[in-house]
């Protein structure tokens, strides 16, 4: 047993999980509630992100400056952000300052005032970031890929910030309506690690979260995205030095029965060590790229699998051929028993290694609770991994990583046509 997490359910639907580490001199926390991109209705694109960035911009009892001064005067950190499925918050404080910090967290979540001046500041920041990413080969290739593999308008396929016109159109009224509809205790998940005990959770944190309204509306699932035909998209950015490639397709949700097998397959293909099989070929053997790796994004209502690589423009064809070869190998030369064993050992040994810091523990606990995996998940995980057969892992790769269905996005200096896979 690595950790002994405990759970506390707060009236109104919030859940707190915590894992004490008495030797630690501080507390890390990570929380979420269902106000993510998937909660946006038509016409609200970009609102979830916009609102999350305004949560430190003033409440009914604190101005923007007062919030910053209060937190930093306590030596605390607090940030808000947004994912596809949730609005998130995370930070650090001490047991001594926790009462004040969690009161601020609750205040920010409960009663933001959305000052007009701050709205315009955040709008300018978001528009600048979008412009920067449009000029960033890596960000551009990845966004083009996501919009290719998900149906038009599906939240998983669009920029969570919205497009510039949508960002320009967001008004305080829309932000407040979104907040009123979604921010509450129902579905709130909080993970706390470090110098925490039951007393702190019951007396301080539960009390603070109890101030959130209990009547928020849980977002409905966006629906399983329909499969999309493979596309190739290119963005010519001739002033750049490097071309970025993103290749991928829709995959599976976190709750899918193939998740664990596909996760190991992905690790072996493009993650473990110097980026798995893909890195061994593209980087180590052929010297084509500094990075060439794969990612599995398994979310609540679907997910995707993708390769990303950054290459010299003159070596694009070579990189595409090497990537294509590695995709073919998934069928022609499936993972060997030795590779599978390495992947399993990596996951089992990695449990201890990846729970080194308070923030890592809070992140793991939050994921466990968010996906309702059970408090004994860390105990069960080695057994889950050990129980996977080679056939299951190979089959998961063949089923969910299909070269013929992969879309391709390339951004950077383009020299002729992009070779197909």
């Amino acid at each position: 047993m690595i950790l002994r997490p405990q759970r506390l359910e707060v009236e109104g639907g919030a859940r707190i999980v915590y894992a004490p580490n008495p030797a630690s001199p501080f507390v890390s926390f990570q929380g979420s509630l269902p106000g993510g991109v998937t909660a946006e209705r038509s016409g609200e694109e970009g609102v979830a992100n916009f609102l999350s960035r305004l949560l430190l911009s003033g409440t009914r009892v604190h101005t923007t400056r007062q919030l910053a001064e209060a937190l930093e005067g306590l030596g605390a950190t607090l940030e808000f952000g947004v994912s596809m499925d949730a609005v998130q918050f995370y930070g650090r404080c001490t047991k001594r300052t926790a009462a004040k910090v969690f009161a601020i967290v609750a205040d920010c979540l409960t009663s933001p005032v959305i000052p007009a001046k701050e709205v315009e500041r955040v709008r300018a920041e978001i528009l600048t970031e979008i412009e920067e990413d449009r000029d960033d080969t890596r960000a551009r290739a990845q966004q083009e890929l996501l919009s290719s593999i998900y149906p038009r308008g599906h939240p998983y396929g669009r920029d969570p910030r919205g497009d510039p016109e949508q960002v320009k159109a967001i008004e305080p009224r829309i932000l407040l309506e979104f907040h009123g509809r979604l921010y509450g205790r129902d579905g709130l998940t909080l993970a706390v690690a470090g110098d925490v005990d039951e007393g702190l959770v019951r007396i301080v944190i539960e009390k603070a979260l109890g101030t959130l309204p209990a009547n928020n509306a849980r977002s409905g699932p966006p629906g399983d995205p329909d499969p999309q035909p493979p596309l190739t998209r290119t963005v010519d950015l001739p002033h750049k030095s490097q071309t970025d490639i993103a290749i991928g397709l829709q995959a599976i949700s976190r709750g899918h029965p193939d998740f664990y097998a596909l996760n190991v397959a992905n690790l072996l293909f493009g993650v473990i060590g110097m980026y798995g099989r893909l890195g061994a070929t593209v980087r180590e053997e052929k010297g084509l790229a500094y990075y060439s790796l794969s990612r599995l994004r398994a979310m609540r209502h679907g997910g995707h699998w993708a390769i990303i690589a950054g290459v010299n423009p003159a070596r694009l064809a070579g990189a595409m051929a090497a990537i294509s070869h590695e995709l073919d190998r998934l069928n022609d030369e499936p993972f060997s028993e030795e590779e599978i064993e390495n992947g399993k050992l990596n996951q089992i040994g990695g449990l201890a290694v990846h729970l080194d810091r308070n923030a890592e523990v809070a992140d793991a606990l939050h994921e466990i609770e968010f996906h309702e995996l059970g408090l004994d998940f860390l105990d069960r995980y080695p057994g889950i991994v050990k129980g996977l057969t080679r056939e299951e892992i190979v089959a998961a790769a063949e089923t969910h990583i299909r070269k013929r269905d992969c879309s391709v996005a390339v951004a950077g200096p383009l020299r002729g046509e992009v070779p197909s896979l």
Partner: protein
Amino acid sequence: MIIRPVPGVPQVSVWVTYRIGSAYERTGTTGSTHWVEHMLFKGGGKLAKGDIDRLISRLGGKFNGFTDKDWTMYYETIPAEHLETALFVEAERMRNASFDPKEFAAERTVVISEREGAENQPEFLVEEELWATAFHLHPYHWLPIGYKQDLEGMGRDEVYEYYLRHYAPNNGILTIVGGVDPEATLALVRRYFGSFRPEMVPRTPPLAEPPQSGERRSEIRRPGPVNYLALGWKIPAWGHEDLPKIVMMSAVLGGWRGYNFFAAGSWEPRANRLYRGLVEAKLATVVKSGFEMRRDPSLFAISATLAPGVDHGEVEKKVDAIVERLHEKPPASTEIERARELIRAWSRYEVDGVEFQGFMISQLEVLNSRDSFPGFLQAVERVTADDIQAAAQRYLTDRTRTVIRYHAEGGS
């Protein structure tokens, strides 16, 4: 060697730090230290190519290497019972890397690719120009990645020679933090490193940078959508008696994110003069400030991403006003107490877990200041408002300032 046992934790983090960074390079071979780092993942001695990856990955471990201006570090964080594997890897890496010519040739395009990926980022171009403009003679003039023409031209033998000269037990620091028994650990260290002999490590100090006696400016013009600005002022080396005052000055101006640059993540300080003057005022969308812990005199730097429609001159003018205010009047006691509290907090956060502790110990040791660091933190606590004002007056002057304007032209 430093062993810090942490009873009861299931991990161990092993760090080896070499007193060799890009500041030891010469023109024509820039980037060689970083290239060596890449080659040291490719086997040699008892390690075949790919063995480091396989050995550590099978344990679920993390591993990597970093090349800095003043040092190079390698680390593995693994389950504590497998400490021996990390020591085996690091011992082979220290003396037996093979530098196979074919591998060296393949890695040339990889390190160039790393540089090209960085060149795609305007912030990298600004940083490179800032250091190149501020330092004319000292090798801080270039960044550890090196120049492309040097990476294209350097030969295997000169890089291998560089490795042989600098990778030796007397030029390295072994740091072990985690759930280990000190005596058993010492025995393992002796087994793997005990037979290594010291080398005659070249100790030619980098060329000293002559005093700067006037503002330096440079402009970058590139296609793109967003403008950037960077300003740097010369500050003394880590270990100078004024550094505690500079720490507090930095915290008052731009907040504090710790001495461990891995620890802060995406957290952004907001209760500070630069954030208020630039971001809250909608002149910039991002502002960052601070300094690196450097062996030689270095820079205190401010960088900003300009808000749409804002001119570089407006932002410079605001920065000037912020600096001038600190020249004229010491900070308020509330500001000082907030800065102190933030620095105290980060001294807890940045040593969370065995990996962060391993990095911090290694960083301080390579700067010869591990033993004195508690005293340094106490000195930071004692810094007064007048000290901060005096530090600003002394170091934030136009005579030692370098300004880089990045002009985005024509949209993307």
